[in-house]
Protein backbone atom coordinates (compact mmCIF):
# COMPACT_ATOMS: atom_id res chain seq x y z
CA UNK A 1 0.00 0.00 0.00
CA UNK A 2 1.38 3.36 -0.98
CA UNK A 3 1.53 5.92 1.75
CA UNK A 4 0.28 9.44 2.09
CA UNK A 5 1.73 12.07 -0.23
CA UNK A 6 3.19 14.10 2.57
CA UNK A 7 6.00 14.02 5.09
CA UNK A 8 4.78 13.81 8.65
CA UNK A 9 6.66 15.33 11.55
CA UNK A 10 5.14 13.75 14.60
CA UNK A 11 7.25 13.57 17.76
CA UNK A 12 6.29 10.76 20.11
CA UNK A 13 4.43 11.75 23.27
CA UNK A 14 3.63 15.21 21.98
CA UNK A 15 0.29 16.58 20.93
CA UNK A 16 1.89 17.99 17.87
CA UNK A 17 2.07 16.93 14.25
CA UNK A 18 3.04 18.70 11.08
CA UNK A 19 2.29 17.76 7.53
CA UNK A 20 4.50 18.83 4.63
CA UNK A 21 3.83 18.03 1.02
CA UNK A 22 6.35 15.42 -0.08
CA UNK A 23 7.28 17.27 -3.25
CA UNK A 24 7.60 20.66 -1.58
CA UNK A 25 11.19 20.48 -0.20
CA UNK A 26 12.69 19.45 -3.53
CA UNK A 27 10.66 21.88 -5.62
CA UNK A 28 11.24 24.65 -3.09
CA UNK A 29 14.99 24.09 -3.07
CA UNK A 30 15.31 24.05 -6.85
CA UNK A 31 13.11 27.10 -7.39
CA UNK A 32 14.83 28.93 -4.54
CA UNK A 33 18.26 28.30 -6.02
CA UNK A 34 17.06 29.44 -9.44
CA UNK A 35 15.69 32.67 -7.97
CA UNK A 36 19.00 33.27 -6.21
CA UNK A 37 21.05 32.53 -9.32
CA UNK A 38 19.01 34.83 -11.55
CA UNK A 39 19.15 37.60 -8.97
CA UNK A 40 22.94 37.36 -8.82
CA UNK A 41 23.28 37.38 -12.60
CA UNK A 42 20.78 40.22 -12.89
CA UNK A 43 22.71 42.30 -10.37
CA UNK A 44 25.73 42.10 -12.65
CA UNK A 45 24.02 43.32 -15.82
CA UNK A 46 23.22 46.89 -16.76
CA UNK A 47 25.19 49.94 -17.71
CA UNK A 48 27.94 49.01 -15.27
CA UNK A 49 28.73 45.31 -15.75
CA UNK A 50 29.90 43.21 -12.81
CA UNK A 51 30.80 39.52 -12.91
CA UNK A 52 28.56 37.17 -10.87
CA UNK A 53 31.53 36.25 -8.71
CA UNK A 54 32.16 39.90 -7.85
CA UNK A 55 28.45 40.31 -7.11
CA UNK A 56 28.57 37.43 -4.62
CA UNK A 57 31.78 38.80 -3.10
CA UNK A 58 30.26 42.25 -2.71
CA UNK A 59 27.11 40.81 -1.14
CA UNK A 60 29.22 38.87 1.35
CA UNK A 61 31.19 42.02 2.18
CA UNK A 62 34.45 40.90 0.60
CA UNK A 63 36.82 43.13 -1.36
CA UNK A 64 36.56 43.03 -5.16
CA UNK A 65 39.07 45.72 -5.98
CA UNK A 66 36.44 48.08 -7.35
CA UNK A 67 35.04 50.54 -4.80
CA UNK A 68 32.04 51.23 -7.08
CA UNK A 69 30.71 47.69 -6.57
CA UNK A 70 29.42 48.27 -3.07
CA UNK A 71 27.29 51.23 -4.12
CA UNK A 72 25.98 49.60 -7.29
CA UNK A 73 25.26 46.15 -5.90
CA UNK A 74 24.21 46.82 -2.34
CA UNK A 75 22.55 50.21 -2.60
CA UNK A 76 21.17 50.36 -6.12
CA UNK A 77 20.54 46.89 -7.46
CA UNK A 78 19.98 44.62 -4.44
CA UNK A 79 16.79 46.30 -3.14
CA UNK A 80 15.28 46.14 -6.60
CA UNK A 81 16.06 42.44 -6.98
CA UNK A 82 14.73 41.60 -3.52
CA UNK A 83 11.64 43.67 -4.15
CA UNK A 84 10.90 41.93 -7.44
CA UNK A 85 11.25 38.55 -5.72
CA UNK A 86 8.88 39.61 -2.93
CA UNK A 87 6.34 41.10 -5.34
CA UNK A 88 6.40 37.84 -7.32
CA UNK A 89 6.00 35.86 -4.09
CA UNK A 90 3.02 37.99 -3.10
CA UNK A 91 1.35 37.78 -6.51
CA UNK A 92 1.88 34.02 -6.83
CA UNK A 93 0.51 33.42 -3.33
CA UNK A 94 -2.45 35.70 -3.93
CA UNK A 95 -3.24 33.92 -7.19
CA UNK A 96 -3.12 30.50 -5.53
CA UNK A 97 -5.54 31.67 -2.82
CA UNK A 98 -7.96 33.17 -5.33
CA UNK A 99 -7.89 30.15 -7.64
CA UNK A 100 -8.58 27.87 -4.70
CA UNK A 101 -11.33 30.09 -3.38
CA UNK A 102 -13.15 30.49 -6.69
CA UNK A 103 -12.40 26.89 -7.73
CA UNK A 104 -11.41 28.38 -11.04
CA UNK A 105 -7.94 27.79 -12.53
CA UNK A 106 -8.32 30.87 -14.70
CA UNK A 107 -8.78 33.23 -11.76
CA UNK A 108 -6.10 35.72 -10.73
CA UNK A 109 -5.92 38.93 -8.70
CA UNK A 110 -7.32 40.94 -11.59
CA UNK A 111 -10.69 39.20 -11.32
CA UNK A 112 -11.10 40.72 -7.89
CA UNK A 113 -10.86 44.13 -9.52
CA UNK A 114 -7.57 44.79 -7.73
CA UNK A 115 -5.58 45.95 -10.76
CA UNK A 116 -8.45 48.00 -12.12
CA UNK A 117 -9.14 49.70 -8.80
CA UNK A 118 -5.52 50.52 -8.13
CA UNK A 119 -4.88 51.61 -11.72
CA UNK A 120 -7.92 53.86 -11.84
CA UNK A 121 -7.06 55.66 -8.62
CA UNK A 122 -3.41 56.08 -9.60
CA UNK A 123 -4.26 57.43 -13.05
CA UNK A 124 -6.93 59.81 -11.78
CA UNK A 125 -4.62 61.19 -9.10
CA UNK A 126 -1.63 61.52 -11.42
CA UNK A 127 -3.52 63.21 -14.21
CA UNK A 128 -6.45 65.06 -12.70
CA UNK A 129 -5.06 66.25 -9.39
CA UNK A 130 -2.48 68.98 -9.78
CA UNK A 131 0.80 68.22 -8.01
CA UNK A 132 -0.40 65.12 -6.21
CA UNK A 133 2.71 63.95 -4.31
CA UNK A 134 4.13 60.89 -6.08
CA UNK A 135 5.01 59.14 -2.85
CA UNK A 136 1.36 58.97 -1.86
CA UNK A 137 0.39 57.22 -5.10
CA UNK A 138 1.14 53.73 -3.71
CA UNK A 139 -1.01 54.37 -0.65
CA UNK A 140 -3.87 55.67 -2.79
CA UNK A 141 -3.50 52.77 -5.22
CA UNK A 142 -3.66 50.31 -2.34
CA UNK A 143 -6.84 51.99 -1.12
CA UNK A 144 -8.24 51.77 -4.65
CA UNK A 145 -7.48 48.05 -4.78
CA UNK A 146 -9.19 47.47 -1.43
CA UNK A 147 -12.28 49.45 -2.44
CA UNK A 148 -12.58 47.58 -5.73
CA UNK A 149 -12.17 44.21 -4.02
CA UNK A 150 -14.69 45.21 -1.36
CA UNK A 151 -17.17 46.16 -4.07
CA UNK A 152 -16.60 42.82 -5.78
CA UNK A 153 -17.14 41.00 -2.51
CA UNK A 154 -20.42 42.74 -1.79
CA UNK A 155 -21.74 42.37 -5.34
CA UNK A 156 -20.57 38.89 -6.16
CA UNK A 157 -19.97 36.93 -2.99
CA UNK A 158 -22.21 37.89 -0.15
CA UNK A 159 -25.39 36.98 -2.02
CA UNK A 160 -23.98 34.84 -4.78
CA UNK A 161 -22.32 32.32 -2.49
CA UNK A 162 -20.56 29.48 -4.20
CA UNK A 163 -20.82 30.78 -7.75
CA UNK A 164 -17.50 31.32 -9.52
CA UNK A 165 -19.32 32.20 -12.74
CA UNK A 166 -21.10 35.13 -11.11
CA UNK A 167 -17.79 36.33 -9.69
CA UNK A 168 -16.08 36.24 -13.06
CA UNK A 169 -18.93 37.99 -14.88
CA UNK A 170 -19.08 40.79 -12.34
CA UNK A 171 -15.28 41.01 -12.37
CA UNK A 172 -15.22 41.40 -16.14
CA UNK A 173 -18.00 43.99 -15.94
CA UNK A 174 -16.30 46.06 -13.25
CA UNK A 175 -12.95 45.86 -15.05
CA UNK A 176 -14.56 47.12 -18.26
CA UNK A 177 -16.06 50.11 -16.47
CA UNK A 178 -12.75 50.82 -14.70
CA UNK A 179 -10.71 50.57 -17.89
CA UNK A 180 -13.16 52.83 -19.71
CA UNK A 181 -12.82 55.54 -17.10
CA UNK A 182 -9.03 55.09 -17.03
CA UNK A 183 -8.86 55.51 -20.82
CA UNK A 184 -11.11 58.55 -20.65
CA UNK A 185 -8.87 60.21 -18.08
CA UNK A 186 -5.77 59.37 -20.14
CA UNK A 187 -7.23 60.93 -23.29
CA UNK A 188 -8.03 64.22 -21.57
CA UNK A 189 -4.79 64.45 -19.57
CA UNK A 190 -1.69 66.37 -20.64
CA UNK A 191 1.04 64.31 -22.27
CA UNK A 192 3.60 64.53 -19.47
CA UNK A 193 1.20 63.32 -16.78
CA UNK A 194 -0.11 60.60 -19.06
CA UNK A 195 3.40 59.30 -19.58
CA UNK A 196 4.00 59.08 -15.84
CA UNK A 197 0.69 57.28 -15.37
CA UNK A 198 1.42 54.84 -18.19
CA UNK A 199 4.77 53.85 -16.70
CA UNK A 200 3.00 53.03 -13.48
CA UNK A 201 0.26 51.10 -15.30
CA UNK A 202 2.76 48.81 -17.05
CA UNK A 203 4.25 47.66 -13.78
CA UNK A 204 7.93 47.89 -13.06
CA UNK A 205 10.46 47.66 -10.26
CA UNK A 206 12.71 50.22 -11.97
CA UNK A 207 14.62 52.43 -9.56
CA UNK A 208 13.13 50.91 -6.41
CA UNK A 209 15.21 51.53 -3.32
CA UNK A 210 15.54 50.15 0.19
CA UNK A 211 12.74 52.51 1.27
CA UNK A 212 10.33 50.78 -1.11
CA UNK A 213 11.61 47.40 -0.03
CA UNK A 214 11.06 48.07 3.66
CA UNK A 215 7.63 49.52 2.97
CA UNK A 216 6.62 46.32 1.21
CA UNK A 217 8.45 43.60 3.15
CA UNK A 218 6.19 43.66 6.25
CA UNK A 219 3.12 42.89 4.14
CA UNK A 220 4.79 39.80 2.78
CA UNK A 221 6.23 38.80 6.15
CA UNK A 222 2.76 38.85 7.70
CA UNK A 223 0.40 37.90 4.88
CA UNK A 224 2.37 35.07 3.25
CA UNK A 225 2.57 32.91 6.41
CA UNK A 226 -1.12 33.67 7.00
CA UNK A 227 -1.80 32.35 3.52
CA UNK A 228 0.11 29.15 4.32
CA UNK A 229 -1.92 28.69 7.47
CA UNK A 230 -5.11 28.92 5.45
CA UNK A 231 -4.07 26.11 3.12
CA UNK A 232 -5.96 23.37 5.00
CA UNK A 233 -9.15 25.43 5.07
CA UNK A 234 -8.68 26.13 1.39
CA UNK A 235 -8.48 22.39 0.74
CA UNK A 236 -11.87 21.94 2.38
CA UNK A 237 -13.41 24.92 0.61
CA UNK A 238 -12.14 23.47 -2.64
CA UNK A 239 -14.53 20.53 -2.19
CA UNK A 240 -17.51 22.87 -2.41
CA UNK A 241 -19.46 24.94 0.06
CA UNK A 242 -21.70 22.13 1.35
CA UNK A 243 -18.88 19.65 1.91
CA UNK A 244 -16.76 22.31 3.62
CA UNK A 245 -19.63 23.21 5.93
CA UNK A 246 -20.15 19.54 6.69
CA UNK A 247 -16.47 19.24 7.61
CA UNK A 248 -16.86 22.04 10.11
CA UNK A 249 -15.35 24.93 8.17
CA UNK A 250 -16.93 28.26 9.00
CA UNK A 251 -17.34 28.94 5.29
CA UNK A 252 -18.42 32.58 5.34
CA UNK A 253 -15.74 33.70 7.75
CA UNK A 254 -12.93 31.63 6.22
CA UNK A 255 -13.77 32.80 2.74
CA UNK A 256 -13.80 36.46 3.74
CA UNK A 257 -10.51 36.02 5.61
CA UNK A 258 -8.69 34.24 2.77
CA UNK A 259 -10.02 36.83 0.36
CA UNK A 260 -8.70 39.59 2.58
CA UNK A 261 -5.23 38.04 2.72
CA UNK A 262 -5.20 37.60 -1.07
CA UNK A 263 -6.34 41.17 -1.66
CA UNK A 264 -3.82 42.59 0.81
CA UNK A 265 -0.97 40.78 -0.97
CA UNK A 266 -2.04 41.78 -4.48
CA UNK A 267 -3.00 45.30 -3.41
CA UNK A 268 0.36 45.91 -1.74
CA UNK A 269 2.11 44.56 -4.84
CA UNK A 270 0.26 46.83 -7.19
CA UNK A 271 0.98 49.75 -4.88
CA UNK A 272 4.73 49.20 -4.88
CA UNK A 273 5.30 47.93 -8.42
CA UNK A 274 2.29 48.96 -10.47
CA UNK A 275 0.07 46.62 -12.44
CA UNK A 276 1.91 43.36 -13.09
CA UNK A 277 -0.43 40.90 -14.74
CA UNK A 278 -0.37 37.15 -15.30
CA UNK A 279 2.04 36.21 -12.47
CA UNK A 280 -0.93 35.39 -10.22
CA UNK A 281 -2.41 33.30 -13.01
CA UNK A 282 0.64 31.39 -14.23
CA UNK A 283 2.44 30.64 -10.97
CA UNK A 284 -0.38 28.64 -9.30
CA UNK A 285 -1.04 26.81 -12.53
CA UNK A 286 2.54 25.63 -12.91
CA UNK A 287 2.64 24.88 -9.17
CA UNK A 288 -0.35 22.56 -9.60
CA UNK A 289 1.59 20.66 -12.24
CA UNK A 290 4.58 20.34 -9.92
CA UNK A 291 3.01 19.49 -6.54
CA UNK A 292 -0.66 18.67 -7.21
CA UNK A 293 -3.87 20.15 -5.87
CA UNK A 294 -3.13 20.03 -2.13
CA UNK A 295 -2.94 23.67 -1.06
CA UNK A 296 -0.45 22.99 1.73
CA UNK A 297 2.07 22.36 -1.06
CA UNK A 298 0.43 24.45 -3.74
CA UNK A 299 0.33 27.82 -1.97
CA UNK A 300 4.06 27.96 -1.03
CA UNK A 301 5.10 26.58 -4.42
CA UNK A 302 2.99 29.13 -6.29
CA UNK A 303 4.64 31.87 -4.23
CA UNK A 304 8.14 30.63 -5.05
CA UNK A 305 7.30 30.30 -8.73
CA UNK A 306 5.83 33.81 -8.71
CA UNK A 307 9.14 35.08 -7.36
CA UNK A 308 11.03 33.15 -10.02
CA UNK A 309 8.78 34.46 -12.78
CA UNK A 310 9.14 38.08 -11.77
CA UNK A 311 12.87 37.92 -11.12
CA UNK A 312 13.36 36.27 -14.50
CA UNK A 313 11.07 38.80 -16.22
CA UNK A 314 13.03 41.65 -14.73
CA UNK A 315 16.28 40.10 -15.91
CA UNK A 316 14.89 39.63 -19.43
CA UNK A 317 13.54 43.19 -19.41
CA UNK A 318 16.94 44.54 -18.41
CA UNK A 319 18.95 42.61 -20.98
CA UNK A 320 16.86 41.98 -24.08
CA UNK A 321 16.87 45.58 -25.39
CA UNK A 322 19.91 46.90 -23.50
CA UNK A 323 20.79 49.68 -22.96
CA UNK A 324 17.05 50.35 -22.93
CA UNK A 325 15.00 48.72 -20.24
CA UNK A 326 11.63 47.02 -20.74
CA UNK A 327 9.38 47.06 -17.64
CA UNK A 328 8.98 43.59 -16.12
CA UNK A 329 5.19 44.03 -16.22
CA UNK A 330 5.43 44.08 -19.98
CA UNK A 331 7.62 40.96 -20.03
CA UNK A 332 5.16 39.01 -17.85
CA UNK A 333 2.36 40.06 -20.19
CA UNK A 334 4.31 38.90 -23.26
CA UNK A 335 4.91 35.54 -21.57
CA UNK A 336 1.43 35.46 -20.05
CA UNK A 337 -0.82 36.01 -23.02
CA UNK A 338 0.20 32.93 -25.02
CA UNK A 339 0.22 30.92 -21.80
CA UNK A 340 -3.28 32.08 -20.97
CA UNK A 341 -4.58 31.26 -24.44
CA UNK A 342 -3.07 27.77 -24.32
CA UNK A 343 -4.66 27.21 -20.94
CA UNK A 344 -8.01 28.45 -22.16
CA UNK A 345 -7.76 26.14 -25.15
CA UNK A 346 -6.99 23.07 -23.02
CA UNK A 347 -9.63 24.06 -20.50
CA UNK A 348 -12.26 24.27 -23.23
CA UNK A 349 -11.16 20.95 -24.67
CA UNK A 350 -11.33 19.01 -21.40
CA UNK A 351 -14.70 20.51 -20.44
Amino acid at each position, binding site marked *: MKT*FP*WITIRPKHAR*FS*LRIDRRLPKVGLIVGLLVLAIMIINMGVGEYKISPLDVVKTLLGMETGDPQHVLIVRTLRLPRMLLSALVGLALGTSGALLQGLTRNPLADPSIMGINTGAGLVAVVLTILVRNFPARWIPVAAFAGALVAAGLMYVLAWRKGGDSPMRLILIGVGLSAVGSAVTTLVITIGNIYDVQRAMIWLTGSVYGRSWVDFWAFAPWVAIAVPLAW*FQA*RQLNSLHLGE*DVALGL*GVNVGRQRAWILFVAVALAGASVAVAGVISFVGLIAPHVARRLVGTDHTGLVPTAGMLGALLLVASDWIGRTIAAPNEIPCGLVTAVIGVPFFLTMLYHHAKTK
Partner: protein
Amino acid sequence: MLATDTLTLGYDGPNILDQLSITLPAGQITALIGPNGCGKSTLLRGLARLIKPKHGAVVLDGHDVQRIPTRQLATQLGILPQNPVAPEGLTVRELVAQGRYPHQRWFQQWSAADETAVRSALEITNMVELADRAVDALSGGQRQRAWIAMTLAQETDIILLDEPTTFLDLAHQVEVLQLLEQLNRQSSRTIVMVVHDLNHATRHADHVIALRAGVVQAAGAPRDVITPSLLRAVFGIEAEVIPDPRTGVPLCIPYGLCAAEPTDTLLHADAVGSRA
Protein backbone atom coordinates in the same frame (compact mmCIF):
# COMPACT_ATOMS: atom_id res chain seq x y z
CA MET B 1 -30.28 11.46 19.07
CA LEU B 2 -31.17 13.80 16.22
CA ALA B 3 -34.57 15.48 16.10
CA THR B 4 -36.28 18.61 14.84
CA ASP B 5 -38.43 20.90 16.93
CA THR B 6 -41.02 22.96 15.04
CA LEU B 7 -38.43 23.34 12.29
CA THR B 8 -39.28 25.83 9.55
CA LEU B 9 -36.98 25.89 6.53
CA GLY B 10 -37.02 27.77 3.28
CA TYR B 11 -35.01 29.88 0.88
CA ASP B 12 -36.28 33.21 -0.42
CA GLY B 13 -40.01 32.81 -0.93
CA PRO B 14 -42.52 30.49 0.73
CA ASN B 15 -41.35 28.03 3.38
CA ILE B 16 -40.56 24.54 2.18
CA LEU B 17 -40.98 22.94 5.58
CA ASP B 18 -43.28 24.44 8.17
CA GLN B 19 -43.18 23.66 11.89
CA LEU B 20 -41.82 20.17 11.37
CA SER B 21 -41.16 18.05 14.47
CA ILE B 22 -39.64 14.65 13.83
CA THR B 23 -37.27 12.25 15.55
CA LEU B 24 -34.57 10.25 13.81
CA PRO B 25 -34.05 7.05 15.80
CA ALA B 26 -30.45 6.58 16.96
CA GLY B 27 -28.52 3.62 15.62
CA GLN B 28 -30.99 3.04 12.81
CA ILE B 29 -31.17 3.70 9.09
CA THR B 30 -33.82 6.26 8.27
CA ALA B 31 -34.98 6.86 4.71
CA LEU B 32 -36.61 10.14 3.72
CA ILE B 33 -39.00 9.56 0.85
CA GLY B 34 -41.44 11.66 -1.13
CA PRO B 35 -41.98 13.17 -4.57
CA ASN B 36 -39.65 15.76 -6.11
CA GLY B 37 -39.91 19.06 -4.32
CA CYS B 38 -41.53 17.59 -1.20
CA GLY B 39 -38.74 19.04 0.92
CA LYS B 40 -36.81 15.87 1.74
CA SER B 41 -33.47 17.21 0.53
CA THR B 42 -34.17 20.52 2.22
CA LEU B 43 -34.88 18.65 5.46
CA LEU B 44 -31.60 16.74 5.15
CA ARG B 45 -29.67 19.95 4.49
CA GLY B 46 -31.41 21.54 7.45
CA LEU B 47 -30.46 18.60 9.69
CA ALA B 48 -26.83 19.09 8.64
CA ARG B 49 -26.99 22.86 9.37
CA LEU B 50 -26.37 23.66 5.70
CA ILE B 51 -29.52 25.82 5.87
CA LYS B 52 -30.31 28.02 8.83
CA PRO B 53 -33.80 27.46 10.25
CA LYS B 54 -36.25 30.33 9.86
CA HIS B 55 -37.93 29.08 12.98
CA GLY B 56 -37.51 26.16 15.37
CA ALA B 57 -34.38 24.08 15.68
CA VAL B 58 -32.51 20.92 14.86
CA VAL B 59 -31.72 19.24 18.15
CA LEU B 60 -28.80 16.89 18.72
CA ASP B 61 -28.75 15.17 22.12
CA GLY B 62 -30.77 18.03 23.60
CA HIS B 63 -28.67 20.84 22.11
CA ASP B 64 -29.64 23.23 19.33
CA VAL B 65 -27.14 22.49 16.54
CA GLN B 66 -26.93 26.17 15.63
CA ARG B 67 -25.35 26.73 19.04
CA ILE B 68 -22.80 23.93 18.73
CA PRO B 69 -19.51 25.21 17.21
CA THR B 70 -19.53 24.03 13.62
CA ARG B 71 -16.24 22.16 13.92
CA GLN B 72 -17.36 20.31 17.03
CA LEU B 73 -20.61 19.40 15.31
CA ALA B 74 -18.56 18.05 12.42
CA THR B 75 -17.11 15.41 14.76
CA GLN B 76 -20.62 14.21 15.61
CA LEU B 77 -22.49 14.57 12.35
CA GLY B 78 -21.28 14.07 8.78
CA ILE B 79 -23.06 14.97 5.59
CA LEU B 80 -22.55 13.79 2.05
CA PRO B 81 -24.31 16.29 -0.22
CA GLN B 82 -25.81 15.41 -3.58
CA ASN B 83 -23.27 15.12 -6.44
CA PRO B 84 -20.19 16.54 -4.78
CA VAL B 85 -17.43 17.44 -7.24
CA ALA B 86 -13.79 16.70 -6.46
CA PRO B 87 -11.11 19.11 -7.72
CA GLU B 88 -9.28 17.93 -10.81
CA GLY B 89 -6.51 15.49 -10.06
CA LEU B 90 -7.29 15.01 -6.36
CA THR B 91 -6.56 11.41 -5.40
CA VAL B 92 -8.90 9.20 -3.39
CA ARG B 93 -6.45 9.12 -0.51
CA GLU B 94 -6.18 12.91 -0.41
CA LEU B 95 -9.96 13.23 -0.53
CA VAL B 96 -10.50 10.75 2.28
CA ALA B 97 -7.81 12.46 4.36
CA GLN B 98 -9.84 15.66 4.16
CA GLY B 99 -12.52 13.96 6.22
CA ARG B 100 -10.16 14.42 9.17
CA TYR B 101 -10.41 18.20 9.02
CA PRO B 102 -12.63 18.66 12.11
CA HIS B 103 -10.20 16.58 14.17
CA GLN B 104 -7.19 18.68 13.19
CA ARG B 105 -5.67 21.96 14.33
CA TRP B 106 -2.80 24.01 12.98
CA PHE B 107 -0.47 22.32 15.48
CA GLN B 108 -2.12 18.92 15.02
CA GLN B 109 -2.14 18.43 11.29
CA TRP B 110 -1.74 14.71 10.92
CA SER B 111 -2.00 12.57 14.04
CA ALA B 112 -1.70 8.80 14.27
CA ALA B 113 -5.48 8.70 14.80
CA ASP B 114 -5.96 10.56 11.51
CA GLU B 115 -3.90 7.98 9.71
CA THR B 116 -5.75 5.04 11.24
CA ALA B 117 -9.14 6.55 10.47
CA VAL B 118 -8.25 7.15 6.82
CA ARG B 119 -6.84 3.66 6.36
CA SER B 120 -9.86 2.01 7.89
CA ALA B 121 -12.26 4.19 5.86
CA LEU B 122 -10.46 3.10 2.70
CA GLU B 123 -10.64 -0.54 3.78
CA ILE B 124 -14.33 -0.52 4.72
CA THR B 125 -15.30 1.07 1.42
CA ASN B 126 -13.02 -1.28 -0.48
CA MET B 127 -11.04 1.63 -1.93
CA VAL B 128 -7.52 0.58 -0.92
CA GLU B 129 -6.60 -0.52 -4.43
CA LEU B 130 -7.91 2.71 -5.94
CA ALA B 131 -6.49 5.00 -3.25
CA ASP B 132 -3.89 6.62 -5.48
CA ARG B 133 -6.19 7.18 -8.45
CA ALA B 134 -7.66 10.58 -9.23
CA VAL B 135 -11.27 10.86 -8.05
CA ASP B 136 -12.42 12.45 -11.30
CA ALA B 137 -11.08 9.47 -13.26
CA LEU B 138 -13.18 6.89 -11.37
CA SER B 139 -16.51 5.37 -12.35
CA GLY B 140 -19.67 6.72 -10.74
CA GLY B 141 -19.91 3.94 -8.16
CA GLN B 142 -16.25 4.14 -7.19
CA ARG B 143 -16.48 7.90 -6.90
CA GLN B 144 -19.47 7.62 -4.60
CA ARG B 145 -17.57 5.10 -2.47
CA ALA B 146 -14.63 7.51 -2.27
CA TRP B 147 -16.89 10.27 -0.98
CA ILE B 148 -18.54 7.93 1.50
CA ALA B 149 -15.04 6.99 2.66
CA MET B 150 -14.31 10.68 3.26
CA THR B 151 -17.46 10.99 5.33
CA LEU B 152 -16.46 7.84 7.25
CA ALA B 153 -12.99 9.20 8.01
CA GLN B 154 -14.78 12.01 9.79
CA GLU B 155 -15.76 9.34 12.38
CA THR B 156 -19.17 10.70 13.23
CA ASP B 157 -21.96 8.77 14.90
CA ILE B 158 -24.48 10.24 12.51
CA ILE B 159 -24.11 10.21 8.74
CA LEU B 160 -26.52 12.05 6.45
CA LEU B 161 -26.58 11.25 2.74
CA ASP B 162 -28.46 13.07 0.00
CA GLU B 163 -29.48 10.60 -2.71
CA PRO B 164 -26.35 8.45 -2.43
CA THR B 165 -27.48 6.11 -5.21
CA THR B 166 -28.64 8.58 -7.86
CA PHE B 167 -26.87 8.24 -11.23
CA LEU B 168 -25.47 4.84 -10.28
CA ASP B 169 -26.24 1.66 -12.17
CA LEU B 170 -28.05 -1.16 -10.43
CA ALA B 171 -24.99 -3.05 -9.17
CA HIS B 172 -23.43 0.12 -7.78
CA GLN B 173 -26.70 1.09 -6.12
CA VAL B 174 -26.82 -2.25 -4.33
CA GLU B 175 -23.14 -1.93 -3.43
CA VAL B 176 -23.57 1.50 -1.82
CA LEU B 177 -26.70 0.49 0.06
CA GLN B 178 -25.10 -2.68 1.38
CA LEU B 179 -22.12 -0.63 2.51
CA LEU B 180 -24.40 1.72 4.44
CA GLU B 181 -26.22 -1.22 5.98
CA GLN B 182 -22.92 -2.76 7.00
CA LEU B 183 -21.81 0.50 8.62
CA ASN B 184 -25.02 0.68 10.53
CA ARG B 185 -24.94 -2.94 11.69
CA GLN B 186 -21.26 -3.13 12.57
CA SER B 187 -20.69 0.19 14.28
CA SER B 188 -24.31 1.14 15.04
CA ARG B 189 -24.01 4.42 13.22
CA THR B 190 -27.16 6.44 12.70
CA ILE B 191 -27.76 6.85 8.99
CA VAL B 192 -30.25 9.22 7.42
CA MET B 193 -30.59 9.17 3.67
CA VAL B 194 -32.78 10.67 1.00
CA VAL B 195 -33.72 7.95 -1.48
CA HIS B 196 -35.78 8.00 -4.62
CA ASP B 197 -36.36 4.30 -5.04
CA LEU B 198 -39.09 3.17 -2.66
CA ASN B 199 -37.94 -0.42 -2.71
CA HIS B 200 -34.48 0.67 -1.59
CA ALA B 201 -36.12 2.42 1.32
CA THR B 202 -38.15 -0.62 2.33
CA ARG B 203 -35.25 -3.02 1.88
CA HIS B 204 -32.51 -1.12 3.66
CA ALA B 205 -34.14 1.28 6.11
CA ASP B 206 -35.40 0.57 9.61
CA HIS B 207 -37.41 3.75 9.65
CA VAL B 208 -39.16 5.59 6.83
CA ILE B 209 -40.38 9.17 6.83
CA ALA B 210 -42.72 10.01 3.98
CA LEU B 211 -43.04 13.69 3.09
CA ARG B 212 -45.38 15.49 0.79
CA ALA B 213 -45.36 19.26 0.28
CA GLY B 214 -43.30 19.68 3.44
CA VAL B 215 -45.66 17.69 5.65
CA VAL B 216 -44.93 14.29 7.16
CA GLN B 217 -47.54 11.86 5.86
CA ALA B 218 -46.28 8.87 7.76
CA ALA B 219 -43.29 7.76 9.79
CA GLY B 220 -42.35 4.36 11.12
CA ALA B 221 -41.11 0.92 10.13
CA PRO B 222 -41.46 0.18 6.39
CA ARG B 223 -44.00 -2.58 7.06
CA ASP B 224 -46.29 -0.16 8.88
CA VAL B 225 -45.77 2.83 6.63
CA ILE B 226 -45.67 1.60 3.05
CA THR B 227 -49.28 0.92 2.06
CA PRO B 228 -51.22 1.53 -1.15
CA SER B 229 -53.14 4.37 0.48
CA LEU B 230 -49.92 6.10 1.56
CA LEU B 231 -48.46 5.79 -1.93
CA ARG B 232 -51.66 7.31 -3.28
CA ALA B 233 -51.45 10.18 -0.79
CA VAL B 234 -47.72 10.84 -1.11
CA PHE B 235 -46.85 10.08 -4.71
CA GLY B 236 -50.25 10.10 -6.35
CA ILE B 237 -49.72 6.63 -7.76
CA GLU B 238 -51.83 3.52 -7.80
CA ALA B 239 -49.59 0.71 -6.63
CA GLU B 240 -49.70 -2.80 -5.35
CA VAL B 241 -47.74 -3.52 -2.17
CA ILE B 242 -46.74 -7.15 -1.71
CA PRO B 243 -44.31 -8.80 0.70
CA ASP B 244 -40.84 -9.30 -0.75
CA PRO B 245 -40.59 -13.05 -1.41
CA ARG B 246 -37.21 -13.33 0.34
CA THR B 247 -37.21 -10.78 3.12
CA GLY B 248 -40.87 -10.09 3.69
CA VAL B 249 -40.44 -6.31 3.56
CA PRO B 250 -43.04 -4.43 1.54
CA LEU B 251 -42.41 -4.31 -2.18
CA CYS B 252 -44.11 -1.64 -4.29
CA ILE B 253 -45.23 -2.18 -7.82
CA PRO B 254 -46.59 1.03 -9.32
CA TYR B 255 -49.28 0.63 -11.98
CA GLY B 256 -50.31 4.18 -12.83
CA LEU B 257 -51.22 7.65 -11.69
CA CYS B 258 -54.23 8.36 -9.53
CA ALA B 259 -57.16 10.48 -10.64
CA ALA B 260 -56.70 14.23 -11.12
CA GLU B 261 -56.74 15.56 -7.55
CA PRO B 262 -53.37 14.44 -6.13
CA THR B 263 -51.59 15.11 -9.43
CA ASP B 264 -52.61 18.77 -9.26
CA THR B 265 -51.23 19.21 -5.80
CA LEU B 266 -48.17 17.32 -6.86
CA LEU B 267 -47.47 19.90 -9.54
CA HIS B 268 -48.07 22.58 -7.01
CA ALA B 269 -45.60 21.02 -4.63
CA ASP B 270 -43.04 20.88 -7.38
CA ALA B 271 -43.45 24.55 -8.12
CA VAL B 272 -43.09 25.51 -4.47
CA GLY B 273 -40.08 23.39 -3.78
CA SER B 274 -38.28 23.60 -7.07
CA ARG B 275 -35.10 24.80 -5.33
CA ALA B 276 -35.07 21.91 -2.89
